């Protein structure tokens, strides 16, 4: 009966209750949609980062991570690449010769990471060829050619087929330089990456470093991120002399972005629900004030404090939960629509790409977010019912009845 009374009390002032119900609905929709937008951005960033930059796993000589010395190559690297490519959970794998060096032209110079690659393996692991915007991707038979990012190209005022000089420290700590001609220009969604990386043939870089046939890095792309930890463990236990790291360790800033996005949902929703809570508290306090005599009468008849609290809690719960499903449904519809067709943020392309984000955002939402919504809704209900309930419980029935 208390449930019935509470439910009917909610609809005593239909307009007032409807305002709260709509507020809850739009609040939840806004929170979920905002999070789905964030999820879309972050997931795309993670996906792009894994598929085109760091891959799922990377293997290095333990010393190489601290000091990019040419001598810290992976023992029997090419053979190790072949072994890993036989793992069932591995989609593709490639070996790289890596050096920190300098690119110089007549118009300037810049510090860069030089990636010596095997073009076909790199293509299947990082889809580097898909980033080509001008010229050609590295071929299998070429020599002293370089694949350079558009951002760096513009910075150094270069153009296709321009000559550049790459300078590195070789294995004996001597300075070694080589002239390379620009074969192709690439552009990824991550401008800072484009500015800091160039690609040359692995054998050319090995020659410069004096480490022919050796590789410094193995990038492993898995069929699924779900196999990340198990594959990493397998490699770590099977080959303890090399260092195997996941993308989370290699690019902690991306993992941090994921964590921040997750935490931001609590913050966004927390703020929205807090704002809603004040509206609900106000509505409930008005309801208590209007029903002072009635509540006094109920207490006089024998309704104890726990039941009065329960009734007010239920009224608040009904108010909040009437709006919640509609908010969730609305958010599902909008997330589905924009998840399919995307949200075009090309107006802010420069800003987005400078942080490595795509200008097309495809919102996505997961079950965890809905669980958080429900937790916050329950917390809001409890919080919102406390003040009105306290007001009601402080009523003296003999005085309340006379009001």
């Amino acid at each position, binding site marked *: 009966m208390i449930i019935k009374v509470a439910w009917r009390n909610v609809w005593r002032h239909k307009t007032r209750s409807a305002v709260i119900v709509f507020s809850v609905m739009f609040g939840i929709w806004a929170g979920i949609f905002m999070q789905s937008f964030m999820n879309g951005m972050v997931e795309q960033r993670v996906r792009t980062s894994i598929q085109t930059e760091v891959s799922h796993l990377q293997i290095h000589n333990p010393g190489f991570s601290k000091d990019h010395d040419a001598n810290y190559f992976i023992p029997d690297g090419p053979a190790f690449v072949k072994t890993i490519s036989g793992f069932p959970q591995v989609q593709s794998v490639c070996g790289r010769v890596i050096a920190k060096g300098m690119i110089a032209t007549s118009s300037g110079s810049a510090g860069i990471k030089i990636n010596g690659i095997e073009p076909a393996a790199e293509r299947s692991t990082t889809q580097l060829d898909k980033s080509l915007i001008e010229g050609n991707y590295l071929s299998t038979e070429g020599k002293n050619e370089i694949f350079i990012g558009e951002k760096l190209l513009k910075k150094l005022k270069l153009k296709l087929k321009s000559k550049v000089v790459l300078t590195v420290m070789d294995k004996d700590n001597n300075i070694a330089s080589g002239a390379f001609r620009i074969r192709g220009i690439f552009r990824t969604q991550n401008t800072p990456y484009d500015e800091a990386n160039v690609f040359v043939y692995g054998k050319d870089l090995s020659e410069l470093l004096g480490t022919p046939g050796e590789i410094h890095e193995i990038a492993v792309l898995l069929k699924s991120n779900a196999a990340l930890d198990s594959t990493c463990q397998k490699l770590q236990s099977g080959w303890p002399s090399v260092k195997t790291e996941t993308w989370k360790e290699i690019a902690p800033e991306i993992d941090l972005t994921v964590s921040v996005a997750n935490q931001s949902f609590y913050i966004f929703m927390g703020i929205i629900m807090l704002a809603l809570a004040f509206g609900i508290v106000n509505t409930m306090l008005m309801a208590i004030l209007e029903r002072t005599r009635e509540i006094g009468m109920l207490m006089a*008849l024998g309704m104890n404090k726990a039941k009065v609290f329960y009734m007010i809690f239920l009224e608040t719960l009904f108010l909040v939960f009437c709006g919640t499903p509609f908010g969730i449904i609305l958010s599902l519809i909008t997330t589905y629509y924009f998840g399919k067709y995307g949200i075009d943020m090309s107006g802010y392309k420069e800003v987005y790409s400078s942080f490595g984000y795509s200008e097309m955002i495809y919102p996505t939402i997961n079950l965890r977010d809905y669980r958080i919504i429900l937790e916050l809704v329950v917390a809001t209900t409890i919080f919102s019912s406390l003040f009105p309930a306290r007001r009601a419980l402080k009523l003296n029935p003999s005085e309340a*009845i006379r009001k």
Partner: protein
Amino acid sequence: MDTVIDTHNVFKIYNEKSIPVYAVNGVHLHIERGEFTALVGPSGSGKTTLLNMIGGLDKPTGGYVEINGQNITKMNSNELINFRMRNIGFVFQSYNLIPVLTASENIEFIMLLQKVNKKDRKKRVLELLKEIGIPDKGNIRPSELSGGQQQRVVVARALASKPAFILADEPTANLDSVSASNLLDIMEKLNTEEKMTFLFSTHDQRVIDRAHRVITLQDGKVTSDVPGKEGIASDRILEHKK
């Protein structure tokens, strides 16, 4: 006869520390089962305050109240709530029905608080609706009932818990003469047939005329305690029979 209400030198003092106001000033009251008593007096004489203390809605500053031999003044608020629910029926001046419930549900509500089973609740509701003369109005909400009908539902609600007595604070104040008369008929019938004890606080001469005992309060003190017209008539009949 059983004593239902017993007040022992009850005081209610407001502003005790500054300028004390004696709302109730040393009242001794003794009401037996089956009495039909009116508590009368001018506004501010302490009728409602005394009624509230008897009903356990307010605590005396001094003295104590016994209901059915139990000292309710000693009880804490939870014990009092439980005691009120099981022993006291309230009829208020301004109906005070739950507007979102039907007449039947209003009557049933207190039995739910008492955890009476559904079958017994439904049976009792039907009995009470019949008893108050509106058996066909059970599914109607209070706003669709007349003032008199609403006050009858209030009486039925008060009776639903099978209380030891009913406290009625100005029960006819908002009723026209026909409705007031009908309500008093019902109350009198309950008093006569079921020996239900009634204690009214009232200004209404129609109630005073029907009371068997009239207690007058003035400045918080009992200034007279006499049989009412009905009481006198009953006494005369008894004397005549003797």
